[in-house]
Structure formats: C-alpha cells, structure tokens
C-alpha cells in the first residue's frame, strides 16, 4: 500500500542495547531514497497468517553494501517480536520510506541530540550523517543504568557523548534534564527522541532558551547565526515513534495535533516541531 514493497534479504541481526534488536537488510532499490528520520514498514505474516506493517526506524544506511539497518521497537505486551526470529538470508517485504527526513538547516554547525534507550534508534543515522557533513554533534543519553546504554562504538568517534544514568553507574547521576542548560545555548538545533520524560525536559529547555534576553550591552539584539533562505527547521524537533498502521496517512493511528493542524507521523513526521505540537502520552 502506498510505496511498492521491496524484497529485503536479511544480512545481519544486531543489538543497539540489551533487547533492542536491529536487522540489516540488503535492499539496494531502497537505499537511495532513505534519509535519517525515515522508517520502513516491515511486513511479515504472524501466527494465524495475519500480516502487519510494523514501523522500524532506519538506524543506519550503508551505501557501499546497499543495505539498511532497522531497529525493532519494543512491544507493549512485552512479547518477543517474531521478526527477531528471522534467519540470515531470509527475504521479507520492506515498504518505505515512511515519513519525512529530519530537517537540518544549512546554517547548523552544532547539533544536539537528546535520547533515551527508545529514541537512540531514530537518531543514530542522523548522528552518522551529520558528522560526515562536518557538523559538530553532541548526544545526551539517558538510561536507568549503564547496562541499558547503547555502546559508544555504534556512533562515529567525532560524536561527543554525554551520559546520565538514574543510578549513577556511569556519567551524571540523574536525568538529561540536569545537563540541558549547558548545551541548549551551544546548539544551533536540537532533536529529542524518546519517552515522555526526556521530551518534556527538552521542551522545557527550549522554552527557557526562547525567553532568554539576547540583547547585548550595546542595546542591540545579539546576531544569530545567519540562516539561509531554505532554513525552516524549528530549533527543537521531537521524533515520535509509532508502531503500526496504514502507512499512507489514512487510518489516523499516528496523528498528533500541532499548531499548523494535524500531523500524520507516517506522512509528515516522525519529526515534529516540539513547541508547536500537543505531544503527550507515552509515544
């Protein structure tokens, strides 16, 4: 439905963090159209022959191998995803890209990524692409304990990783909310991906940043970094994950309200203007 299904051959099964499975598919026909922020629909019959279109964020794009790595999202019922039981070499249907790429302004040179264990998969491809483009990337990661964190080796060396853990087993003890003040004034743009807690923290930081008096001693407003005409991305974008659905913006299963009307995550998302949208719940 929508895009034509493409056959994807499973090349590898990996893990972003304990229990967070990734699948790497050879799908050369898809690669050229994929950008950071996109997801794929992975279609496979379940027990009873039922086929669902599961949303799997693109976590890495390998142009040389013609492959794409997607991350399986945790199921609400805690069940094991049947997709994790695929064998290397199996071929399944992939549909995509789903959604729009994350907008990065041309003038952006310092990018702040704010993630938890759930959101990491949505921005990993962006971190890789941004550093390749010469953008300084800092990633604030939040986890309950050090064992829940994704390995640093999954990111390019140039990415600065700042960690906050609830139990203090590594990095800052607490949440990323405590660290944000230091980074929001540094960043030209920020992306938050994850649960309600870090989204709320990032949104509050963005509001505070907006209300800072930027008037200089001379009485004139401080000059912002020059934006090019095509720059239209908001300072803070929130990436909202969604599980399943039609993928064509028809069913209403992934809709959030925004200042500019309804945003269908499978069409206009998954990145939305964090300050202009009513984002609540556990999505």
């Amino acid at each position, binding site marked *: 439905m929508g895009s034509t299904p493409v056959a994807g051959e499973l090349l590898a099964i990996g893990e972003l963090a304990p229990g967070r499975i990734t699948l790497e598919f050879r799908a050369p026909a898809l690669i050229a159209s994929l950008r950071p922020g996109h997801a794929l629909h992975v*279609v496979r019959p379940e027990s009873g022959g039922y086929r669902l279109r599961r949303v799997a964020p693109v976590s890495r794009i390998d142009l040389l191998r013609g492959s794409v790595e997607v991350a399986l999202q945790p199921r609400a019922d805690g*069940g094991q995803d049947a997709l994790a039981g695929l064998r290397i070499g199996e071929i399944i249907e992939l549909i995509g890209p789903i959604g729009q790429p994350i907008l990065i302004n041309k003038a952006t040179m310092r990018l702040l990524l704010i993630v938890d264990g759930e959101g990491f998969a949505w921005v990993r491809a962006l971190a890789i692409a941004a550093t390749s483009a010469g953008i300084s990337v800092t990633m604030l990661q939040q986890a309950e304990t050090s064992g829940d964190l994704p390995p640093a080796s999954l990111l390019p060396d140039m990415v600065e990783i700042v960690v906050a853990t609830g139990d203090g087993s590594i990095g800052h003890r607490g949440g990323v909310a405590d660290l944000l003040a230091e980074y929001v004034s540094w960043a030209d743009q920020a992306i938050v991906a994850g649960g309600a807690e870090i989204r709320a923290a990032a949104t509050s930081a963005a509001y505070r940043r907006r209300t800072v008096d930027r008037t200089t001693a001379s009485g004139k407003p401080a000059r912002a970094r020059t934006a090019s005409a095509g720059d239209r991305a908001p300072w803070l974008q929130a990436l909202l994950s969604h599980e399943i659905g*039609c993928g064509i913006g028809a*069913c*209403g299963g992934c809709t959030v309200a925004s200042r500019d009307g309804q945003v269908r995550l499978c069409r206009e998302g998954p990145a939305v203007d964090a300050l202009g949208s009513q984002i609540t719940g556990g999505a």
Partner: protein
Amino acid sequence: MPPRKRAKVAVPRTTGTTQAAEQLNERINPLTVDLAVTLGTEHALRLERPIVVASGPLGFGNEAGGAIDLRDVGLFVVRGISLRPRYGGQMPRLVEVPGGLMHAVSRENPGADEVMDRHGASWRSAPCAVALSLVATSVKELAQLIARVERRADELGIVALEVDLTAPCDDLDGSRWEVSADEALRLIDTARGATDRPLIAKVSSAANELRRLASESLDAGIDVLSVSGSPHGFLPDRARRGPALAAGIGELSGPLVRPAALAAIAVAFGSSGAPIIGGGGLGSPADALDAFAAGASAVSLGTALWADPRLPGAVGASLRRAVAARGETSVLALRGSALGSRHE
C-alpha cells in the same frame, strides 16, 4: 533382474451424486459467476461485488484509490464523519496485541462539511459504490448530520449511509449505542425518517441483545446489517506500567476477533435473515468464505488491507471459484452454508 511390480493405482469410487455434481461443475465457468448482490428490498443496495472496504482503515477517500484497486470492491465505506470535528485523542493510538492490533482513533474527523469538501470528488469518480459512516452521540445530532449530508449526497455520489452503533452515545454515558437495543433502535428510527437512501447499521460482536437488534432493526428501517464492528480491548504496557493505548480502552482488529465475529454473523442471520455485511479479522479469501458460510451476504475487509492491498481481488476470484464449484451462479448460494440444521 527381478520383474518390476506394477504400481497399484487407487481409483476413487464415484457415486451418482458426485458424478452429477462434477458434470454440472464442468458447465460452470467461474468467470460467468455473478458476484453482484442486491441487499435489502425497500431501499435496496446493489453492489457489483460483495466486497466492502470497512470504515476507517483506508481513510476518507483521497488516499484509498492509490492504496488498493477499487475496481475489485463493491462498496467503499468512508471513515466515520460527524457533524462537528472530533479529535482522536493522544498517542499511542495503535498498538500490536497478540493476534492482531488495537486502536483508539476515537472516530477523529474534521467534520462532515470539510470531509465532503476535501474528499467528495474522489467519491464521485470512484469505480465502486460509496457509503458514508455516520458518527453521532445523540439522536438529534444524527438527524442534523443526515440533513447536512443529504444536501450534497446526490452531487457527491453517495449511495448509502451507515449508522455506526459502535460509536459512543451521550444518553448511555459514553457507552456504545449497541449496548442498548432500545437506544440503538431509536437512532435507527431517526435515521430512517431522515433519508431514503439504503441504510446500513454497524454493530460489533459485543452488541447486547444482538438477536433482538438484528430482527427489530429491519422493522425500524434498516436495509443491511453490518456485523463488522470492533469489540473493545485493553492491554497494559508492561514496560511503562500504564495502558498501552493513551485512551486506555481500544478497539480490536485482526484474527483474534474472527471467531467471535463469525458467531455474531451466524446469530444475526439466524435470528433475522437480514442481509449481512460480515467482517472482523478477515485476512484471506478463505476467511471471507467463512463469513459467507456463517450467513453473510457480503464481506467487509479492514486492517488486513494494509499489508495485502490485493486482497479484494483475491476474495472476488475465490468467491467465483467457490460458487462455480457448487454448481451455482450467484454468490448468495454460499450464504449460511455452514449453518445447516444445527444453527439456532
């Protein structure tokens, strides 16, 4: 070299009856089977194929044509519309559950006028019949909604109207209309008084007093009963320690609801003989045949279309073959074939 044994070939015994059936089958070409059905009598609804796209999964219209081939469909039921805009609630609205999925879109829509403005053109040009699914929380609201729709229905090519009895009712404290046969019949009566178009009433397998509702809704003016609505479900999110859906209670789709849906079709057909659009978890041509066997005169396809857009075409081909195999020429010959003498 030992002599080769002759292979024994089992020859099936044929009775006179099976021989006659085989001879008859040879004469029925599946392509000649007529899939068209006429549902109801007073305000008859004629469908070129007994295949219905359920209200919801494919949206209001503009998106549907690019998603599936509507030439394989008899009736496209537009996602539910209401007099005024309805907001669908917070995310998550859709989660996977064992054996299917659960959704809580709460019949979100921008209101009847905007839907008709934006999607009406696609209804006019659709190669199948189009029905609007009407969502109203009160009798008065439904009357106003039908009046609003009727003003433009002919111009927009709207063939029939579906009254959604699985929508919430104000007088029942937000419970569904279908939990009270009295309230549901009151709503149907109002709808009948407001339009001369074929009326479909949609219920789920969880409807209370389904036997009474099925038989009395015909007297109240319904032409077709759609037993395809989604029953309620709930799933805790074990990781987040809250409900999996932001709304808490959701509506179920997928194979997990199919046996209950088939039971409801059988009960409704057995108690009323009403023309029934049967649905709920139908995901294959074989499932569609099961719905006919339980008493349906047409089948409703929903979320299965997301993963298999060619399903309507496959169902149509399967129905033709099944009818031809019985030596019949009308798809209605399949209706109730599994009920036999044991159905109530």
